[in-house]
């Protein structure tokens, strides 16, 4: 390992310990690491977007003499420059145009893809032959259908949750609570995994104590 590799590992370890020191209390080491993180993060995105998007995608297409639609990316470039006017108070209103384009494009796309994939396909998956397969499959299918239906009943707030309707909504809440519990369990798993990665770096890569 060369000098820069070793120096890099020590620097990374110092930064890691600086961030972890926040667990004791907020301190200047943590604040310094946080500032470095913010600046480096902004700079990283700045560079990646320049080389990958602006140079590799926009510039190569816009200046390619064999590209018959070379003029098309220039419209996007103009919209992009307009969005930067937001930095200046006097001409900041010009940024509404590219913003409106983004919002409109996303609204148009999402309207269809969410309706198809997250509504229609999910509804058609729920309307399934329940009494097929083994008794385990029958119970599972019935539970999925019942749970989806009752969960949707709970989200229907135009009618008071009373009587049979209220009973179904209550069952829906139970299913939703189980869903949130499962999400919480997976969230704990995810957060612990993040820390495990850092411990592997500190005690493995830096200190060499882990095989």
């Amino acid at each position, binding site marked *: 390992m060369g000098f820069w590799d070793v120096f890099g590992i020590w620097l990374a370890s110092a930064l890691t310990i600086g961030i972890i020191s926040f667990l004791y209390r907020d301190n200047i080491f943590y604040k310094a690491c946080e500032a470095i993180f913010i600046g480096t993060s902004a700079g990283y995105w700045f560079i990646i977007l320049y080389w990958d998007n602006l140079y590799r995608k926009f510039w190569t297409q816009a200046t390619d003499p064999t590209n018959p639609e070379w003029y098309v990316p220039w419209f996007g470039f103009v919209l992009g420059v307009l969005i930067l006017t937001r930095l200046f108070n006097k001409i900041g209103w010009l940024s509404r145009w590219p913003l409106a384009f983004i919002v409109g494009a996303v609204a148009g796309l999402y309207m269809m*893809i969410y309706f*198809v*994939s997250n509504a229609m396909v999910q509804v*058609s998956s729920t309307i*399934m032959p329940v009494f097929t397969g083994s008794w385990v499959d029958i119970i599972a299918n019935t539970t999925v259908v019942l749970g989806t239906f009752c969960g949707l009943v709970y989200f229907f707030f135009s009618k008071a949750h009373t009587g049979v309707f209220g009973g179904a909504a209550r069952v829906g809440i139970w299913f939703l609570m189980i869903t949130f519990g*499962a999400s919480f369990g*997976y969230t704990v798993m995810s957060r612990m995994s993040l820390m495990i990665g850092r411990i592997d770096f*500190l005690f493995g890569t830096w200190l060499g*104590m882990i095989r």
Partner: protein
Amino acid sequence: MRARELIVSGLIILFFLACYFFSPKPMEFSRSTSVLIIFLLAAAFVYVFIRTFRGRFIGRRVVFIFVGVALVLPFFMKFPLPLQISPEVQSVYDALEKLPPHSKILASFDYDPPSAPELQPMAVAFMKYAFEHDLKIIIMGLWPQGPQQADQAIQAAFIENPDLKQKTKYGVDYVNLGFQSGYEFVILQMGQSFKSMFPADLYNTPYDSIPLLKNVSNFSNVDFSMNFSAGKPGTAEWVQIAVDRFQLPLAAGNTAVQAPMIYPYLKKGSKGKKQLIGLLGGMAGGAEFEKLTKKPAKATTYLLSQSFAHVAVVIFIIIGNVAFFREKKGKK
């Protein structure tokens, strides 16, 4: 800075320097030492339970120390753990097994360094499997850090199996197209033409000059797709556009935070087809995939630490609730 903060900082630095200079490398606890540590931890939890039961909650820093110990010490223990394969992980492996050699796989790396402990091990396992079975990989990313994480996964695969480095050639066996901003609009455009979104690869080699991408113009020319995702844009967007609109066969590896939200895509629809072929969920999913590919690596090593951490959290929740019920009973 106050004196106490300086002392604590000094002690932490001394601890790590002592570990660096004086600890055995690598360090491994014997079976009896591991069992003793577990008993000591259990005794500490009993002490916390008694204290909490008496209405004296322990401070948050003590909880942090318990969690830290539960995460760190298992790294030095060796306990064989049973690992069952879940059906959604088995589906991913079965789908890959069915691919003939020279099949083209589109691998989308949609995650950043914070998610690497969960996703990097499964990415490395996937790369090793793909190169060993002569599958061709087209790498891209909807997150800017994705292509770099892909590169690291490839380098790690080469380090673990040096023969793969001799066997594989950039541009012929794999290519890295890099990142494009545009979120789901990138996927939408790729459905028509990969070249329009990626006119060149990471090294600015024009799309048409890359041998692997000859005859690859859009999703219909790709045999399979694998998505490693930590959030948005990610698996959900790939399902919504690439699968439901362009019928791309897709499997995914997700962080554990996102995995529960992806389960509805695993169910068969009215046409008998699943939106998502299979799912590797979190570190556990990565470990199961490593077991299936018969190459246990990082994810499998991390599982013992993960297990201890989960037990610690469960015990803390139980202790807190016992104290709560006792207090409730006392008030009645």
